[in-house]
Every structure is written in structure tokens, then in C-alpha cells.
């Protein structure tokens, strides 16, 4: 590995291509530059989403109207959700850290399709722009929440089409990123790096890539159906036309639950790298870590129904989804055990990234245990009706919290690439 680094090559920051200045970034097909493009655009939209969130909190600071009326609140709520989910958390880890680190960690020059990679960034920007435009163009901003639930999403006067289409374009961008990673991992691993010698972060990106590839089209077609229902009055989910709104929820969550794993799986991979680096040990139970990554992605694809426990599904479906949900706990627990075991008898270097990782594991355990409670059918129904804040706190804890946590953690160790190549050594050996 180390000989590879001694080749004289200009840093990607100083690289001089055909263009200069800004154009040398937005026309660059270099994976590192694209990663930074993603990073800064995501940070920008994060600020937008966070501002909306803060304004919502200000509104809630006192009863009655404080700074905005109910309709504006709904609009902010919707835009906040769409931006934060589709434009920040989902591309956050794969598109930024995946793009930057994946080729480096598997010893490739770049991803398989660099132009496609740049195109997916453009699609990302177009998608977010469409979503933001929906807020200002047209009569009223969209007010459905980020889930676009039928039948409200095609009955509301809100300006839904740009928002829905924007989400569709963002999905397409996510698919292209996933596709690129999968082909890169299949075709461009360094000679000698067999599947089971690949570091864990690429492994999680591999699983994430499959989830992006196979789950996103479902929400894509669902959003297209909503568009068709709004514009052409084709009966899909409208009960007055014989449709079933619950079917919309099925299709929507078939994507949006796996989307949770797009957010969390790369985080888990990075945590595995950080813990083993700062414990000065190879990861405990590497094979199990790989298997649990794939198992989470696979089983996670079939558990969407636990978002719909109270929506009126049949009992059989409820039990099935409850059972499948419990199954996810097994690979998740394997991961936590292995992280802890990696630290066992390691010579732990108590650096900042390690503390962040510890906090991640701790939060993940809280989230995981409450997931067990929520996965059980009866408790879930009780909680959903009585203690909704519990559910919200859990999802905020384990998803929204973990990812920024992790991003800070990684930015904490800016020299992760070097760290990774150091720990490639034992694995490649």
C-alpha cells in the first residue's frame, strides 16, 4: 500500500485541469472533488433545513400564533422534512464520505463511472432546487409533510408537483451514486483485495449501494403515481376512485424504511474503522461484521410495515412485520458486541474521534433497545397513541443524532485516509 502513495501526483486540491476556479470544481470528475462538492452543498442545505427547524421551534415557544400561522408552519414542516431527509441525511454519508474514501480504501484510482458521479451531483442540485422552488412558486407551498401521504398529497392546493418531482430526481441521484459504488467495488478493488479482505467501511457502502439501488425505484414509481394522480386523475390511491391509501404507505415505506439503513450503515462501517484504529486492534469478528452488515440491509428491506402498525393492516401482516423487525435486532446486536470486543484488551488511544464513537455506540444501544420495545406490536400501538413523544425522541436519537454525530466524528480525524491505509495493512496481510 505504502509504495502506492509515493507516486508523485498533485493533490486533488491543487490539481489543475482544463478549467480554473469554480469551474475546476463543478466540472471535475475527480471523486475527491465531487465528495467535497457534495459536502458543501449538503452543508448549505443543512443550514436551510436547520433554519426552518429553528423557526418551527420558535413558533412552538408559546401557545397560539407566535411568528407564523398554521399553514406556514405546515409548509415549513414539509420543507424541513424533505430537505433534511432527501437532501441531507440520505446523501450525507454515502455521497460525501463514500465518494471520498471508497476508491482510496479499495485501492482504486477513482470510481468506475466518474462522469456519472458528477452527473449525480448535478441531479442532486436540480432535485433540491425543485424542492426549494416548490416553496415559492405557485399558489401555496406544499403542506403534506415529507411523506406525501395519499390521498392528501393529491387533494391539497399546495404546489406539490415540484416537490414530488424534486424528491424523484433526488432519488435518481441516490441510485446513480449507489450504482457507481457497487460497480466500483465489484470491478476496481486492488489486486489481492478479495471480498473478505475489504475494509469494513467499503463493505457497508456496498450494502448501502444495494439498498439505494433496489429501494429507491419503489419510491420513484410511487411519486410518479402521485404525479399522475394529481395531473391526469388516474385512480391509484384515491378511495373515491377505488384506490387504497394504505397501499401508498406500503410502497412509500418499502423505500423509506430501507432509507434509514442508507443513513446508518455507512456510519456503522466508519465506527468499526475508528474503534479498531484507536484500540490498535483489528476488528473483532470481521466475518460476522460483514455478514451482519449484509443481513441488516437484507432484512431491513422487508420490515417497512412497522411504520404502519396503526394504519389498519391485517393482523397477519402486523405479526409478520413485528417478527421481521425483531430479526433486525440480531445483526445490530452482533455489531455492538463486536465493537465492544474490539476494545477489549486493546491499547486504547483516548482521542476525540474515539469519544465520538463511544457516544455513537451508546446512542445506538439506546435506540436499539427502544427499537425492541417499539417492534413489539402491542407496545407500539400503545406508545403511538399515548406516548408519541417517546417514538419521536427515539427516532431523533438514533437517526438524526447519530449521523451528525458521526460526521463530526469523522471531521474530527481529518487524516482518516492515512489511518485507513494503516489499518489496511493487517487486513491485507
Amino acid at each position, binding site marked *: 500500500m505504502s509504495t502506492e502513495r509515493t507516486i508523485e501526483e498533485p493533490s486533488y486540491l491543487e490539481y489543475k485541469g482544463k478549467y480554473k476556479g469554480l469551474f475546476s470544481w463543478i466540472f471535475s470528475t475527480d471523486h475527491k472533488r465531487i465528495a467535497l462538492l457534495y459536502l458543501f452543498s449538503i452543508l448549505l442545505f443543512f443550514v436551510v433545513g436547520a433554519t426552518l427547524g429553528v423557526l418551527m421551534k420558535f413558533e412552538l415557544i408559546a401557545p397560539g400564533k407566535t411568528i407564523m400561522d398554521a399553514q406556514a408552519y405546515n409548509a415549513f414542516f414539509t420543507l424541513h422534512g424533505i430537505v433534511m431527509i432527501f437532501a441531507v441525511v440520505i446523501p450525507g454519508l454515502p455521497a460525501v464520505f463514500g465518494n471520498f474514501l471508497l476508491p482510496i480504501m479499495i485501492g482504486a484510482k477513482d470510481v*468506475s463511472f466518474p462522469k456519472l458521479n458528477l452527473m449525480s451531483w448535478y441531479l442532486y442540485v436540480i432535485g433540491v432546487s425543485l424542492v426549494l422552488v416548490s416553496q415559492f412558486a405557485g399558489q401555496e407551498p406544499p403542506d403534506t409533510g415529507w411523506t406525501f401521504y395519499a390521498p392528501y398529497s393529491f387533494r391539497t392546493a399546495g404546489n406539490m408537483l415540484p416537490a414530488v418531482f424534486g424528491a424523484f430526481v433526488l432519488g435518481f441521484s441516490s*441510485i446513480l451514486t449507489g450504482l457507481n459504488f457497487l*460497480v466500483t467495488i465489484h470491478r*476496481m478493488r486492488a489486486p489481492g483485495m478479495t471480498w473478505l479482505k475489504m475494509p469494513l467501511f467499503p463493505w457497508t457502502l456496498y450494502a448501502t449501494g444495494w439498498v439505494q439501488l433496489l429501494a429507491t*425505484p419503489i419510491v420513484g414509481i410511487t411519486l410518479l*403515481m402521485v404525479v399522475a394522480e394529481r395531473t391526469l386523475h*388516474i385512480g391509484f390511491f384515491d378511495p373515491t376512485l377505488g*384506490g387504497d391509501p394504505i*397501499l401508498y404507505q406500503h410502497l412509500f415505506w418499502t423505500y423509506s424504511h430501507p432509507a434509514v439503513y442508507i443513513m446508518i450503515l455507512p456510519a456503522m462501517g466508519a465506527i468499526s474503522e475508528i474503534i479498531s484504529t484507536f484500540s490498535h486492534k483489528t476488528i473483532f469478528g470481521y466475518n460476522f461484521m460483514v455478514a451482519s452488515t449484509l443481513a441488516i440491509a437484507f432484512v431491513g428491506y422487508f420490515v417497512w410495515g412497522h411504520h404502519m402498525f396503526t394504519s389498519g393492516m391485517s393482523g397477519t401482516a402486523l405479526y409478520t412485520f413485528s417478527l421481521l423487525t425483531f430479526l433486525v435486532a440480531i445483526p445490530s446486536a452482533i455489531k455492538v458486541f463486536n465493537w465492544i470486543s474490539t476494545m477489549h484488551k486493546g491499547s486504547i488511544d483516548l482521542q476525540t474521534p474515539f469519544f465520538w464513537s463511544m457516544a455513537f455506540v451508546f446512542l445506538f444501544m439506546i435506540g436499539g433497545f427502544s427499537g425492541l420495545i417499539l417492534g413489539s406490536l402491542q407496545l407500539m400501538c400503545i406508545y403511538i397513541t399515548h406516548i408519541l413523544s417517546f417514538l419521536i425522541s427515539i427516532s431523533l436519537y438514533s437517526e438524526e443524532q447519530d449521523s451528525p454525530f458521526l460526521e463530526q466524528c469523522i471531521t474530527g480525524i481529518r487524516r482518516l485516509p492515512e489511518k485507513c491505509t494503516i489499518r489496511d495493512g493487517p487486513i491485507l496481510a
Partner: protein
Amino acid sequence: MTTEIHRDDLASKTGMWLFLFTEMLLFGGLFIVYSVYRFRNTAAFHLAAEELSVFVGTLNTILLLISSATIAMSITAIQKHNKKLTLILLGITVILGIAFLVNKYFEWGHHIREHIYPGSPVLALRGQGDVLFYGLYFFMTGLHALHIIIGLIFICVIGQLIIKDKISHDNFVLLENSGLYWHLVDLIWIFLFPLFYLIT
């Protein structure tokens, strides 16, 4: 560092296959909707399907199957250095694809003349099962037709590249990829055909 362009045909083909997976899932979502509504409105779906012309459907199926075979054969032709035959076979594929679209146009035109289209009051009077059936029919065949149009454009571009010798016997992965895309369109029609025309 040399600026040799990295070419990996297998990567390109794998990428195409992965893209086809997303297409499968895209239509998979529609098949889920179809199967759910068919289950809930079995009788209405059966009656509504009787109005579709089995003859036109069968004809279109056969057209697509032949076009699939010709584009598959064009790959053999280019591997055997037979540029002219490759172009002829691609031309046949395009003509058959256009013939499919023409048939589809007349089929849709027939329905629309009978006031059967999404949102039509005549259709609404016939009940929810029919509304759902024709909604799915127009949306799924429409999306499929859109794929055919994209496929035709793709094949025409490939044909141009073959004329310019950008694609030749040792560099034909783009032709293979256009073929894969076209076969996928065929594959989806293989399922659409019985589900809409043959369930009477």
C-alpha cells in the same frame, strides 16, 4: 502518469445490469399495485380486460419478440465483423419498435374514442374496478411505451456510432448495453401482456 483511458467492458455491462435492476423494481412497484387491486376487484378486472384486443396484444408481443431477437443477432454480427448486417438488424429492430408504438397509438386512440381514459366521466360511471384497471392500463403501458421510445433513441445513437466505426468488433459493449435495455423492455411486456390482455 500516462493518460491512458481506463476501459472496463465488464464494469460497463455490470453497471447496465444494475440499472436494469432499478427498472425492474420500478415496474415491480407497479406490479404490486396491480396485484393488490386485481385481488380486490377480480370480477371487474376480468370484464374490463375483455375489451382489450387480444389480437393487437399478441401482434405487439410478437413484434417485440422479433425485435429482441434481431438486436441480439446484431451483437453476433458485429462480433463476426459484419458491419452491414449489424446495421440492417438494428434497423429492423427500430422499425419493429416503431410498429409497436403505432399499434399502441391506434389501441389507445380506440379507447379514447370510446371515452375510456383516466378522468373520463363515462369511465367513472362504470365503477371503481374499471377506473383502476384502465388507470393501471394507461399508466403501465404508457410508461412501457416511454421506455420503448428511450430504447429506440438509444439504438439509433448506437447505429450512428457503428456507422462512424466508434463501435466495432472489439469494442461493442455499448451495443450490448442497448441490447440489454431493449430486452428488458421486452421482458416487461412479456408480463404486461398476460396481465392486461389474457386474464379474461
